[in-house]
């Protein structure tokens, strides 16, 4: 087995070698400012699959460039934002969206902040109540 470090290293080398490939990209010509704003918004919400903590707007990876072009072409042919997102989900899965849809397998993700908030509030409540019942502040265990 090739170690993961080597794989990462090779990936970095590969990415470095890809640099010249996107140097000559063509500028996109939008029909109006509204379309440009839509394009900016969409590429902000969609993830680059190569550098996975970047969105499509920020990424310089060749795939991100291809996908931006594809999004632009779909906009030109009159497809809606939802259709464009669905196009990408069909190929790359929900992962391509920065905001995952609420589904059975993402429920934990969506509910966790609320659970943590209420859990924390509950702990605070219990601690405060305990202290108010024991105003001297001495804990029984420590004595």
């Amino acid at each position, binding site marked *: *087995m*090739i170690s993961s470090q080597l794989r990462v290293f090779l990936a970095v080398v*590969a990415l470095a070698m890809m640099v010249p490939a996107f140097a000559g990209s063509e500028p996109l010509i939008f029909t109006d400012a509204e379309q440009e704003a839509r394009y900016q918004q969409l590429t902000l919400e969609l993830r680059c699959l*190569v550098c996975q903590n970047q969105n499509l707007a920020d990424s310089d990876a060749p*795939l991100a460039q291809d996908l931006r072009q594809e999004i632009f072409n779909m906009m030109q042919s009159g497809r809606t934002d939802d259709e464009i997102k669905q196009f990408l989900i069909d190929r*790359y899965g929900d*992962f391509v969206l920065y905001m995952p849809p609420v589904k059975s397998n993402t429920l934990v993700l969506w509910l966790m902040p609320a659970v943590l908030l209420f859990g924390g509030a509950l702990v605070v409540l219990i601690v405060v109540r305990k202290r108010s019942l024991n105003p001297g502040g001495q804990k029984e265990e420590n004595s």
Partner: protein
Amino acid sequence: MIGRIVPIILFVLLGVLLAVGLKIADHKTEIPSPLIGKKIPEFSLPALGQEGVMITHEDLIGQPFLINVWASWCPTCRTEHPFVEQLAASGRLRVIGLNYRDEEEDALAWLEYFGNPYALNMADVSGRTAIDFGVYAAPESFLVDAEGYIVFKQVGMLTPEIIAQEILPRIQSAGSSQP
């Protein structure tokens, strides 16, 4: 009493979280493909190095095959190349190359130098067909059954272990109905 046990429990849970995190760290960037269990996307691509010859999805369907996404600029493709050759040489599976975002000249030189295990090679210069396959890194490999359904996808390099454990068992079930 409880005051002492709670931190220990939290510490153990944190340790479990760390262990799980380390275990999946190698596979963290692998995205499960929504194409598994679906028919291969339709395409029509020129055959690499053969001017005027087009290959479509319909040309491939009929027997199980493996689509291997590769490029001459991809160092991991070079690393996996001997394993792809072994698989092709075993005669158990057709290996079809999808040459991804490459220069024809470079791709042909690469095959000349390292050897050509591919029954067919398709040139996807623009990367447009690769988008339909949900390709986001090379190498990637798609195992397709005789009816044209994608049964397995490997992101990253093929290894003898993956070929033996993931690919060959699947063609026995996928291809046995074919003559």
